[in-house]
């Protein structure tokens, strides 16, 4: 019963795309997802009709995933694990693990540029892109540091260490006091300056015409 429902869902999704696709000719990317993202060209629908669908996946439980399940939903911090870290702890960890590439106080080092400042720079040039100026949500710090840092040994820091380095980054960017800390509840509450800085894809945004002679 449930399977039949799901088949129906898949079929109706494909049908909906096909209908919109036909209606949307003659002017760019008319087909959009339910959340408003332009999809470009749809199809050919990749699923082959199969009388007997093979099923080779092995069931597992969410608990079996363990340390694989590392994504954080940045808007509300869903997925942040229990833990806490202070700015002071983060400074020590940063100086041991991060300075070689990112420099003292994250002002830029041998390999990467500054991770501090840039708030208010986007209406001019250059735009100084840092976690402070660019991230719309603070939990991106936790997610990104956990999955990538330190670059030569990612996914080796403890949860508290990741919170601490995140807190230090927020402090360097003026978004957390020097005696501050972050935990799984407080991180998503921090109002980031660029939270409203993003517009969903609205292309095509150009209106070039196909002129053939005496065009300039």
């Amino acid at each position, binding site marked *: 019963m449930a399977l039949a429902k799901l088949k129906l869902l898949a079929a109706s999704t494909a049908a909906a795309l096909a209908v919109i696709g036909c209606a949307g000719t003659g002017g760019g990317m008319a087909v959009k997802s339910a959340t408003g993202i332009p*999809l470009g*060209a749809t199809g050919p629908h990749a699923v082959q009709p199969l009388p007997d669908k093979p099923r080779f996946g092995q069931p597992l439980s969410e608990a079996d995933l363990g340390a694989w399940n590392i994504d954080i*939903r940045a808007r509300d911090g869903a997925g942040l694990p229990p833990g806490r870290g202070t700015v002071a702890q983060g400074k020590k960890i940063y100086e041991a693990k991060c300075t070689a590439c990112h420099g003292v106080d994250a002002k830029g080092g041998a*390999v990467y540029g500054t991770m501090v400042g840039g708030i208010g720079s986007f209406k001019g040039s250059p735009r100084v*892109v840092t976690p402070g100026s660019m991230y719309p949500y603070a939990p991106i710090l936790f997610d990104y540091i956990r999955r990538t840092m330190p670059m030569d040994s990612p996914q080796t820091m403890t949860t508290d260490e990741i919170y601490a380095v995140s807190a230090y980054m927020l402090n360097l960017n003026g978004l957390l006091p020097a005696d501050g800390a972050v935990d799984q509840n407080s991180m998503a509450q921090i109002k980031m300056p660029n939270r409203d800085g*993003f517009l969903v894809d609205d292309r095509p*945004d150009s209106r070039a015409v196909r002129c053939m*002679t005496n*065009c300039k």
Partner: protein
Amino acid sequence: MSEKTQVSSAPSTRKKKNLLPVEIDAQLQSMDRRRFLGKGMAMAGTTLAAGAVGATAASAAPLPVPESNRSMGKPIPATEYGIPSKFEKHVVRRRTDVFVNRQNWSDWSMTPLQYQPGIITPNGLIFERHHAGTPDIDPAAHRLVIHGMVRQPLTFAMDDLVRYPSVSRFYFHECSGNGLADWLKPASKTVQQTHGLLSGVLWTGVPAATLLEEAGIDPKAKWVLFEGADGSAHTRSIPIEKVLDDTMIVYAMNGEALRPENGYPVRVVIPGWEGNVSVKWLRRIKLGEEPWHFRSETARYTDPLPEGKWRQFSMVMECKSVITSPSGGQTLKRPGFYEVTGLAWSGAGKVRHVDVSFDGGQNWREATLEEPIMDKCLTRFKIGWNWNGGPAVLMSRAVDSTGYVQPSVQDLQKTRAIVGFVQHHNAIQPWIVGAKGEVTNGIGKA
């Protein structure tokens, strides 16, 4: 992409032998001239060329029997993976050398489009973009997981994935950063440097929908996370409609297993969209109600707009084209006939027209599109041109099946902020032909 970089000047192009109707060196070399004539390019057919042919023919000895006719060649070894001729060693991927990163793990290399005929890029020449280098993954140990808003989380071994009914499809693959060094003034010299974050590939794998449907899709799921098993655990959020439509879970490319640098043993391919969403070394797929807003879809891979804003989730690669021959760094050897050729593509459909201008965009002629013309795939265009020996500015302009016309940089500047590290550059590329036949990058000049 990596934020800390230094810009260096484009390297000089070294003298190369080649099988192209143009020289890769600014200076004619007598040896190259003989090779050129030997290749039947005397079709140039001008008085000048004919004179050269006559002079050569009169003074030359009868054609010698080549050494290869008088000896045994290399025998067939018991096993071998074939490699290109030793005379083709200049046809290589090159690490980005215009926009230079200070490390080469989160870095990229570029496809030598100037040497690519047709629409398929050989596996050893497909561009790379990694965020923490290329991992070396044992397929026997690798697992792919689907979980989140599904009825039953599932794990798949590689042995499982290859048992499903497979699909093979041709698609272009392009990095959102293709062209980022050349918006307002020329920084790059060759088409490899300007457009080499582009390849054409036949991908083979399983429709993502097959695996998602097996896990059982919660009707409330709207977005799908794809995560890599590399040192960056690179991750993107993709609308479920695209995943159920044409997205593939891929284990082979151009007739063989994925190369390590292209995602071995398994990756996702999201056709027509910016390359980085097609997460390599795929280990995890998770269904959710909303996007995750990862760093890779907020602080990176977003486009500056006026008033300090940024465009997010701009994933479709819009219609674009470029002339690959003649192109920057090459030299037209003499006036006469040239086949002008290049590539066109669109993430929004098929290429319908490509127009070529020889006078900097004043007048245009429609080029011939070579079959097959496939959806979200590279299309080869060709047009004959009789170079009169004078200065010229060559441009191509593609139109796709939605009616979208490839814009100029000036067109894009009307709605975007071209400031800093700007992606999604699909504007027209001018190549300037000088009086001596030398071809240079004309971006911002023409």
